[in-house]
């Protein structure tokens, strides 16, 4: 291993590489799978990190021979040529390797005018892409920079900015940014100032190109240069970017009002990237004046992304912030004013700061209303999710406007004003806006709002939950908003009195009852998820518990354990698991619990699902519920818990879904920790430390319990599971048990002893190492291992080298062989195979 932790080329790979190169350069061979070529490049990138590439080239002359051979082909395969260019770029990234390739006169043939760029192969986008990527990899030093700038390569890149392939065009743009940054960064010795711009040669060429493009009449050239500047200011915050900008500011500013260029979106991106760069913050206010001008001149749709970006900035003049806030809030303000004439409450904006006519006309047009609102609502949601937002939003008015939009969308509000009436007509039944508004509403739940609007909020949400016109996706978002609002209010004291609280909760459960019976599985599932979420967060509130238990919801949830759709069964299992906390675990005095909620019945039902459900989701959900119960110590007294774990383990041992088994292993792990805690082993941080626990196997209570519960059988069998995560987890648990039970270190092994006649511990170890099938394990009814015998198990724990097994299991956790040697072998193996094999697709 190299000092950086990267692996240099192994001898085996070095032996294989020449044949691989020869095969790749042989036009008679069928083209290699692109994924193989990509993986080879990944490997070479790692090699470049590990050793100086001139050594790589000298030690492996097949590489330069490969370049030569491919370049000599009259009609090389585009993917092979592209690979060659990219590989050459990776190799030439180190200066002495670059020199080596230059001495061999290969560079000009690869990346210069003698190369593919003047051949028919250039028509293929993958070759152009390979060239750009190759150059990008290569230009990491002055020599390469000089080679590209003086050899005409830079003009090729300028042209490729307008390439018909999106991939090539954007790669060319990134490359120019890289070249400019490298050129200025490495060649500039004297700091620049605006008046004396003595740019290094390469940078000068690029800057001149940008300037010329910006001054041209070509909209596409202007856009390319604006994109380049956007990318540059987004990635580089060096002081020289400011000098560069000052030379172009006037020109760029003119595009704000230039309709023929249609570059407003790019301009917004450009200004936002600049606003994020501290370099532009002290441009005597001219930059912020430009931002303000952009916020004024761009249409609301164009300026909104800029506005939201500005509002997230911590360093920004207050006047610009207010302008951005105006842009963002104007549609919402417009909604409020359209809905309530005269406005009864405070609006979102002071009318003096903005002219709402543009927004009003967008909102009253069918084609733009929904788009503008969706965008605004999404931006608001984004802002609301920012923890330390540097600006105070008028939350109450915002909430009112979002609620108003939701009322428009389901026809609950049809205002008299012409604009309001028009907007409500456009929005009624509009799912897109409904979804965005519900997301924004959910996000607003984290903010403090006045209670006047909260009442109408619940009315609107209930209307959505009840309406037959609500689509499953809108319903899911309504549930989310409802649960977030119910949870957000401390002590659920959002209503004036308890009666009102109870009434709302009753209404919620009433509508939930209906939704749990929906013919649409998505709705049943979302309803169950909603229920689970509510219980998880509100189970300590009396009103909540009482309203829930006096409804039909628990019964209906139980019925859904038999749902034909496995997703719904799984959600019902989870909901039942949480319901148990309310129905019997933590509420001994609950007046409504009574006998109808029977713990044993629920456990039996869940165990039945675990053993019989044909699908993984419900079984996994059962395991999660059992684990949750055990974590919260809800499974009863010790004997009960032991019996419970034992039954679960036996049921799960033969499950075909490895995630179910993994869940069971987690259960076992928690159980073991609980036992150690209970019996005072040091694993539990609160337990008294006892030193004499393992003195006698017979007195070792946890060991006895684990044997009785048949845990060892499950753990040892899991070691040999065909799904590796199961083996790994089992090994982890066994290692933990070993460290508990065997006080001596893992190296201090006792000699192997016979577990029983004919099957010594060597056999067991061997069986485990080979990963043989579980059936090779003898059963305890014959002469095999008695997994319930504490002595045998102690012996097994001491004797099996679990540490080594653990290392083995972790080492090869991936069955897809990723080693470079395997890759080279695979490429070679496909040489000469019939093409038929690779023609098939999935």
């Amino acid at each position: 291993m190299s000092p950086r932790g990267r692996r240099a080329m192994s001898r085996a790979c070095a032996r294989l590489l020449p044949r691989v190169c020869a095969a790749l350069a042989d036009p008679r061979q069928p083209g290699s799978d692109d994924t193989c070529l990509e993986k080879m490049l990944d490997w070479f990138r790692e090699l470049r990190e590990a050793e100086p590439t001139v050594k790589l080239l000298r030690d492996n002359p097949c590489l330069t021979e490969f370049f030569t051979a491919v370049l000599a082909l009259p009609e090389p395969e585009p993917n092979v040529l592209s690979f060659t260019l990219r590989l050459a770029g990776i190799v030439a990234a180190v200066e002495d390797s670059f020199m080596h390739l230059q001495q061999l006169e290969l560079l000009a043939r690869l990346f210069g005018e003698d190369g593919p760029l003047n051949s028919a192969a250039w028509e293929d986008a993958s070759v152009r892409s390979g060239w750009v990527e190759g150059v990008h990899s290569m230009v990491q030093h002055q020599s390469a920079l000089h080679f590209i700038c003086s050899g005409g390569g830079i003009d090729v890149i300028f042209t490729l900015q307008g390439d018909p392939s999106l991939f090539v065009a954007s790669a060319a743009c990134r490359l120019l940014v890289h070249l400019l940054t490298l050129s200025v960064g490495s060649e500039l010795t004297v700091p620049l100032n605006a008046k004396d711009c003595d740019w290094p040669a390469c940078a000068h060429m690029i800057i001149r190109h940008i300037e010329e493009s910006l001054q041209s009449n070509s909209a596409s050239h202007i856009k390319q240069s604006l994109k380049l500047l956007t990318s540059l200011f987004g990635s580089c915050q060096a002081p020289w970017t400011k000098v560069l900008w000052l030379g172009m500011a006037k020109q760029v500013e003119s595009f704000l009002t230039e309709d023929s260029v249609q570059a407003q979106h790019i301009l917004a991106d450009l200004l936002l990237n600049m606003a994020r760069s501290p370099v532009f913050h002290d441009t005597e206010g001219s930059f912020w004046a430009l931002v303000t001008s952009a916020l004024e001149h761009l249409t609301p749709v164009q300026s909104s992304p800029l506005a939201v970006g500005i509002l997230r900035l911590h360093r920004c003049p207050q006047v610009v912030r207010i302008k951005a806030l105006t842009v963002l809030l104007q549609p919402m303000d417009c909604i409020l004013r359209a809905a309530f004439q005269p406005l009864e409450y405070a609006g979102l904006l002071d009318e003096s700061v903005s002219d709402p006519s543009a927004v009003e006309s967008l909102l009253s047009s069918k084609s733009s209303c929904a788009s503008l609102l969706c965008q605004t609502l999404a931006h608001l949601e984004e802002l609301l999710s920012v923890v330390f937002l540097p600006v105070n939003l008028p939350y109450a008015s915002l909430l009112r406007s979002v609620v108003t939009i939701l009322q428009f969308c389901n026809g609950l509000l049809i205002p008299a004003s012409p604009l309001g009436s028009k907007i409500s007509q456009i929005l009624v039944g509009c799912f897109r806006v409904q979804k965005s508004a519900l997301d924004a509403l959910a996000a607003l739940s984290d903010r403090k709002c006045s209670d006047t609007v909260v009442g109408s909020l619940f009315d609107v949400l209930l209307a959505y939950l009840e309406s037959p016109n609500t689509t499953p996706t809108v319903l899911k978002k309504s549930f989310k908003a409802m649960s977030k609002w119910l949870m957000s209010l401390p002590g659920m004291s959002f209503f004036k009195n308890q009666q009102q609280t109870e009434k709302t909760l009753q209404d919620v459960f009433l509508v939930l009852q209906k939704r749990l019976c929906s013919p649409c599985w998505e709705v049943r599932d979302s309803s169950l998820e909603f229920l689970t979420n509510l219980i998880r967060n509100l189970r300590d509130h009396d009103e909540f518990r009482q309203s829930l238990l006096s409804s039909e919801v628990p019964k209906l949830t139980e019925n859904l354990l038999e749902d034909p759709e496995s997703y719904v069964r799984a959600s019902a299992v989870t909901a039942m698991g949480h319901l148990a906390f309310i129905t019997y675990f933590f509420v001994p005095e609950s007046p409504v619990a009574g006998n109808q909620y029977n713990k044993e019945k629920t456990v039996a039902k869940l165990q039945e699902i675990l053993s019989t459900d044909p699908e993984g989701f419900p079984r996994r959900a059962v395991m999660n519920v059992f684990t949750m119960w055990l974590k919260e110590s809800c499974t009863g007294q010790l004997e009960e818990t032991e019996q419970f774990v034992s039954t679960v383990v036996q049921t799960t041992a033969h499950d075909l879904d490895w995630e179910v088994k993994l869940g069971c292993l987690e259960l076992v792990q928690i159980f073991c920790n609980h036992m150690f805690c209970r019996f005072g082993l040091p694993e539990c941080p609160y337990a008294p430390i006892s030193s004499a626990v393992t003195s006698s196997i017979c007195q070792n209570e946890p060991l006895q319990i684990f044997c009785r519960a048949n845990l060892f059988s499950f753990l040892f069998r899991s070691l040999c599971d065909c799904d590796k995560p199961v083996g790994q987890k089992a090994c982890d648990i066994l290692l933990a048990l070993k460290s508990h039970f065997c006080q001596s270190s893992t190296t201090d092994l006792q000699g192997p002893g016979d577990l029983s006649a004919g099957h010594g511990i060597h056999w067991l170890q061997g069986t485990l190492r080979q990963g043989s099938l579980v059936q090779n394990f003898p059963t305890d009814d014959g002469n095999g291992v008695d997994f319930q015998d504490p002595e045998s198990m102690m012996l097994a724990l001491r004797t099996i080298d679990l540490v080594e097994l653990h290392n083995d299991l972790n080492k090869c956790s991936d069955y897809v062989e990723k080693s470079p040697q395997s890759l080279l072998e695979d490429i070679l193996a496909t040489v000469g195979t019939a093409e038929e094999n690779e023609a098939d697709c999935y």
Partner: protein
Amino acid sequence: MPEIKVTPLGAGQDVGRSCILVSIAGKNVMLDCGMHMGYNDDRRFPDFSYITQNGRLTDFLDCVIISHFHLDHCGALPYFSEMVGYDGPIYMTHPTKAICPILLEDYRKITVDKKGETNFFTSQMIKDCMKKVVAVHLHQTVQVDEELEIKAYYAGHVLGAAMFQIKVGCESVVYTGDYNMTPDRHLGAAWIDKCRPDLLITESTYATTIRDSKRCRERDFLKKVHETVERGGKVLIPVFALGRAQELCILLETFWERMNLKAPIYFSTGLTEKANHYYKLFITWTNQKIRKTFVQRNMFEFKHIKAFDRAFADNPGPMVVFATPGMLHAGQSLQIFRKWAGNEKNMVIMPGYCVQGTVGHKILSGQRKLEMEGRQILEVKMQVEYMSFSAHADAKGIMQLIRQAEPRNVLLVHGEAKKMEFLKQKIEQEFHVNCYMPANGETTTIFTNPSIPVDISLGLLKRETAIGLLPDAKKPKLMHGTLIMKDNSFRLVSPEQALKELGLAEHQLRFTCRVHIQDPRKEHETVLRVYNHLKGVLKDYSVQHLPDGSITVESILIQATAHSEDQGTKVLLVSWTYQVGILEDIHFNQF
């Protein structure tokens, strides 16, 4: 001119992951959202950053359409909707919606099993994604929004596979997804009506292949299985949970019945059973034969094929086992393979594609000594067979579909560049339409000539018929009227009606033209001369010489004056009127 733009992010000149962006009449649609199983990093998904450049995904894209449940067509969907952030509508057929999560879950399970896998979706994400899906029926026109509509057609290939027509106004695109023009054992042939789309985007996997009869391959498969079983060997068939497995099961079941064979056939996981459940549920999507015999016996209720238990792998004697996953890279299929690989009597049949690095890929490329888990060498003595059963249209089938749909343009995807090139020429020659084959990231633009419907007022029609012959479909007739563009519609009405509807007054414009002629005579003599001349040449018109000295020709007025500076030159003022309402300005503003 209206245009349709197509940009493949995947499946452009390759058979990787399909993901094609279409812009049609201002609407943006993503066709398929596939995953490449050959990578274990972000390269497995299409590069969605090219869409996010256009602002928020959900604002930019109007909908996503998934053609069928194969992962190279739907594998990136949960990533796209739950991790990248697309929150808009997703459409697929009912069977695809039912089966898609099984395959996604299947793949997730073997992916997260591996170490170092990051940025991959969870089980919950798959569910959340599927809950956003709107399922569609065949031939049902689904209105995505007021302008955009989609319609599914049967595609064969796999259960639930569909071709989709995307229509905005009178412009339309058909995307075939993967399809099969010949029926197989459980599915029918693809079908589409003569919808004459502006563009047909078709797969071209077998662009240059005329495939040998599938019956031959099936016979070959049965022969190999039979021979192995007869000599007491075991046959392992690694499969993905759905698709190929069902086809091969029907094949073996029928053969076992006919030959009265006793060797057991097993499925290795519960997944395939669930798959069979869906094949039963969506029986209407299978072929006619299966549907007909359904009443007597459901073909997916297998008599000979039983669920597999791990213990069975060690049983002596012959057997056939279908085990997942299909590339022999994890789980049960690999475990059974390890047990059976050393015996030359046994056989493994690989019915599908295997990515580099998997055991499946290695044995298919002829490697017989495999290094397992870094140390042990597994010597593969069992026979290794590759049998392709993938159900794609061949060159003949593709041409047949084009003939059926009669598109104005064709665009090839999901194929290799060289083969596409060949097919492209063939299509252009035979159908005289443009054929395109963009690479990934390249945008193809197709210009369309939309026909715009115009309503004609009854009054205008009556007036026209009153003055002319009765309408005849074969003889187009010129009709005069005023075109009003109002409320996104066009109407042709009489000028009077237009004035009335728009509340406009009629204006008269008078045009005057000055003609200079050299005539030294007096003005009235010049007038007289002109009058006589006009009288002579315009015999059929009313030409009058008025007492004030002017001449009229119908409504045209002519006066003569002497030139102010040159008396030898006379200036004739020719003036005429034209009736017109000032409509243009106002109407276009309203539009």
